[in-house]
């Protein structure tokens, strides 16, 4: 299973806000890793990939600041010495990569928008809303990718 499908599964299985925040945090970071891996493969997708990577980083860092985010998740993330290198869709075309990431970001945006509406604390609501906008942006940047 690659990182994108794994991230989608975690979002699907999240049962409460802390679990969703954890899954979202990881999903943004997974998207970032995949996009950086494929960044230089094609001049035509370079702009969309780098802008999506920035949106993923912004989404990850905003969701990390949510008050209900389990601190251990953030602590272990920053404590790791090197990012994992597996599951980066190495065999896929850039269009397949773009569409896979777009699909994850669409799912993530929907989940975070719902969480923003349901969360009790204003900090969680704001973090989810901001992060949902970043996910939506990724979907708009990558969702129209078509094979030439």
């Amino acid at each position, binding site marked *: 299973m690659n990182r994108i499908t794994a991230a989608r599964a975690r979002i699907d299985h999240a049962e409460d806000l802390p679990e969703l925040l954890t899954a979202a945090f990881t999903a943004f970071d997974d998207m970032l890793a995949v996009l950086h891996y494929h960044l230089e493969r094609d001049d035509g997708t370079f702009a969309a990939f*780098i802008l999506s990577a920035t949106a993923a980083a912004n989404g990850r860092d905003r969701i990390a600041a949510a008050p209900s985010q389990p601190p251990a998740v953030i*602590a272990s993330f920053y404590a790791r010495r090197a990012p994992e290198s597996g599951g980066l869709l190495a065999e896929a075309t850039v*269009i397949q990569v773009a569409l896979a990431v777009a699909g994850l970001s669409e799912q993530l945006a929907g989940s975070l928008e719902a969480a923003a509406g349901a969360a009790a604390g204003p900090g969680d609501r*704001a973090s989810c809303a901001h992060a949902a906008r970043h996910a939506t942006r990724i979907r708009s940047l990558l969702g129209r990718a078509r094979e*030439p």
Partner: protein
Amino acid sequence: MRATPDGACASNADDVACSLRRLLTVMSRFAADIKAASGRQPSAGRGQPGPWEHAASRASETLRYAAALLQPILAQPRQPGRARQPDPVARRLDAAATALTAGREVLHTHLASYPGGELRARSEWAPVVLSAPVTRALLYELGTWAHQIAPLGSERAFARAPARGTPEARRRLSAACQRLWELDLAVQAADENDPVPDQDLRLLHAIPASVLVPRHLPDGAEPVTRLCQGTIDTAERVRRHAWAAVPRASWSPALTMESLRESATYAIVISHNCQILLSALATSPQPRRAADLSAPLAEAADAAGDARQAWLQAVRAWHGLLTDTGGTISRAAKEAADLALWTGRLAYATPGWTPGAGPAHLPRPARDLAPRPADLQQVIAAVHHAQDTMTQLADTDHDQIRTASATGRLLMPVHTLPESFDIPYLYSPVPAASAEPLLAAYRDAHAASAQACARTATIAEAIGAPSQILTTARAATQASADSPAAPSRRAPEPAARPRPAMNLPGPVEHILHDLGVTAPETLQRAATLDHATEQLILQAAHEQSMRDPAAAPPDLSRSASTAEIISHLLASGDPRATALLHQPEPRPSAQAEIEP
């Protein structure tokens, strides 16, 4: 006014004096601006004043004297009677006053004036306006204007019948013009000592008004020329908004991690687009270009690629950092997104290109991009503006981050802090040392962008692209910021720009003209007599000053006949003539300005 037999209006010294007074008022304001700008420059207050500092001081004094001399004439009421046409010279002086007022207002759109004469920046052009090179160029122009105006006024002051004007008005007009000659000679002396490069004069004339073109986006139907202009307009908007954000960094809610990260990301895209454009031009057929630019264009494309990589590192350096506010995207970041779109529309063949358009889009071929040399100038100018903007953006964003760090607005997770930090929150303000890698990444992005910009600037200069002025502007501010000498930008020497000495008739020759004499040998004898008379006066004045160095020269211009000789001497460009000028104490009322 009485009409002359040929139908022209007779001259009127009163009219000319009034108009000259208005013009001197505007010129005095320029002189005050030069003084205020000089006070902000690094060389001010160090050691002996240089030639231009001396010239600035003389300009201020001579204009004050000249204005004081003409002040009472303005106070005299116009003679009642039927309306008459003003003197043609007065009309020319009025037009000059209007034009110079407008020119000064253009410069002042970049500045805010505060009580006491202090000038503050209102745009990113302000450091250029206040730079030493531009200040000197302005003073040089002040001398040029004086050089043009003085003979006009002198001619009216000494005009024979049917000229009009009271003797007092003529005497004062003559004396005021002598001060303008004096100003001209002081500026010429400074220019001989430390020449103003032509590029600085061009820079002064190229300074735009501080008015941004309204935000607009490409609709997909633009030809290359309009895409180039859109790129240049948007690049200026990015520079302005980025510059304006720096002083607000300590409190602005628009200073967010998202804004700064997005700005840097768009800088990557813009650098990438510039790289594609330069690569395409490097491969264009040789016969279309006057010079072989393939190698410089390829090097410029590589440099744009290096800038792209440096900006990528700046984006990555944000890892683990956050700002105290979030969600808001700054104006500069939004404008940078527009610039990415404009440069992308230029770089790609697809008319509706967007960053999210996917991989089915090929770069625009060179034959479409620049089929003629003039098109190449436009494209290079667009790339040059975009790269200059990236250089400025790296600088302004670096300063914003530094302020955010210093004011506790830059945060990092407590888990990444040393264990000695006992902080019960998830995020904490970063220690200065932890902000340093991010700041260093922006400094690297600035250096790489500046290098890329310099490569393109070389090409812009080689082909005469209109963006050359950016190079001069950056050098001007750099010269002011670095050292007073700034040797790197003073060379090469400017082209010789001597002001021609005015070949005006002297008093004897003037009389012969009035008598209707046209024989060249007779007029030459008169000119020789005038010259001999002037040399005798200069010699006598010199001997007098050697006998009594402390004695001030008498006011030789009180007599109309001697005033004409002194004016002719000054017009000849002989700097010794200024020693003959009496230095009157200005009246207090001379300080009171009137609206031109």
